[in-house]
């Protein structure tokens, strides 16, 4: 677990006058799950969008798998993104494609000379892994929120990434489905050995999936540690977060 796969130093990002990230430092080791907690609009999603090169930082260094993400362009960036899976909050399944086509998309776009049989096998395995084999010919609009999340994760795993970024994986889901998604995140780690950053408000998700928790307060990670270490802090903002999830 000692190898660093993500190393962020002094990361800053603003949108106009809104300073979202004010010098964020974060390290993620190989095979480690780090949960990022924080209020809405504090820049949690911005952080992982910077990691995958969807947004450019204003300052700071972002090294992922030994590469400085801010310097990657074109083909290099595409190759890098094959190693980093991104599971979107909205699942981001392509509406105009069936589930089979959604899962095939990253494969056929990135790996040349794959036979039809290989593609079919990969799609069936991926669906089997998330327990949704029966949905193969359905359209995304026919699926429930939880099913869409699972398919979104399955699509992200098609290219066997070394790092997984989950943006609010349990947002908008009922408690039972949320537990299933949490279990799936842990299964993905066990099966693939991928490191993960999980963005969430859900403390059950944080406790279940995270080796470490990083709490984003006022644009920096003021509290980083195990779940119990972070929430042992008497800081009112931290305790409010805890009480809302576990006391109310």
């Amino acid at each position, binding site marked *: 677990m000692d190898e660093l796969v993500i190393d962020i130093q002094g990361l800053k990002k603003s*949108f106009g006058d809104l300073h979202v990230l004010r010098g964020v430092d974060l390290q993620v080791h190989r095979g480690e799950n780090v949960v990022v907690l924080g209020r809405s609009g504090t820049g949690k999603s911005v952080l992982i*969008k910077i990691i*995958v*090169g*969807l*947004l*450019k930082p204003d300052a700071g260094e972002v090294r992922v798998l030994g590469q400085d993400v801010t310097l990657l*362009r*074109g083909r290099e*960036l*595409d*190759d890098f*993104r*094959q190693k*980093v899976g*991104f599971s*979107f*909050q*909205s699942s*981001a*399944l*392509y*509406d*105009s494609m069936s589930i089979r086509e959604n899962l095939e*998309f*990253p494969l056929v*776009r*990135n790996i040349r000379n794959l036979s039809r049989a290989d593609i079919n096998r990969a799609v069936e395995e991926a669906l089997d892994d998330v327990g949704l084999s029966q949905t193969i010919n359905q359209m995304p609009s026919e699926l429930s929120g939880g099913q869409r999340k699972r398919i979104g994760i399955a*699509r992200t795993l098609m*290219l066997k990434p070394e790092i997984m970024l989950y943006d609010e994986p349990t947002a908008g889901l009922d408690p039972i489905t949320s537990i299933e998604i949490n279990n799936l995140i842990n299964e993905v780690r066990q099966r693939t050995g991928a490191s993960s950053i999980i963005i969430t408000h859900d403390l059950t998700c944080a406790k279940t999936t995270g080796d470490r928790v990083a709490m984003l307060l006022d644009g920096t990670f003021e509290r980083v540690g195990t779940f119990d270490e972070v929430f042992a802090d008497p800081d009112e903002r931290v305790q409010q977060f805890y009480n809302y999830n576990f006391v109310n």
Partner: protein
Amino acid sequence: MQADTKSTDSPPSRPSIPRRFERFFINLADVAAFVGRFFREALLPPYEFKEIIRQCYEVGYRSLLLISTTGFITGIVFTNQSRPSLTEFGATSWLPSLIAIAVVRALGPLVTALIAAGKVGSSIGAELGSMNVTEQIDAMEVSGTDPFKFLVVTRVLATSFTIPLLTMYTIFVALIGAYINVNQNEQTSFTSYIQEVFGAITYLDIFMSLIKSIAFGFTIGMVGCYKGYHSSKGTEGVGKAANSSVVTAMFLVFIEELLSLQIANAIRGS
């Protein structure tokens, strides 16, 4: 790539006049960059042939019924409306020539472009707007596919290829509609009608009509893609993208029609 160039939501306050000018020129530069990027990405490999063909099918085949109906009705209505004026001068025999010139030079391309702006332009604007809102464009980008090439280049090329074909089809259908009306009222034979039609139009008319249609197709595709790709987040943004795709494309089509008229007149005069 270049996701960071996408517009972000701006505050809803009413801007001052200098600020509006500034915003206008920023938008203009943004449009120029978008068009420039289209040409760069369209010329550089890899080429998305499969997706271009799929989009051509979407644009062409799906618009065919609507184009057929409107083209046919346009031919009938234009013939009917033109007859009284020509009858007044005893010149009804000029009806096929008049129809041919009007349909080939202006009505065919214009009717096709307006129908396409409404049906195809709004559909592209809404589809890309919806993909933007639901993070599908970002998802495409992080899965190693250039969404600009896959979504924008393919759609703009499809409209640029297909709308000229639809225009030729509209002209054909409108002339058939006009013939039915002429045949019923003036008992003109089909052979005579066709001779009159082809006697009235020139290669320049057909060439200009084709060039104009390519420009219309390019404009409709480009406006739909630009509006959808830059739609603001939220369902309201999708509606706005679809709506402004139609309005802007129609406005630009009329401007281009006016320009092409001047160019054609200059060529004919020289």
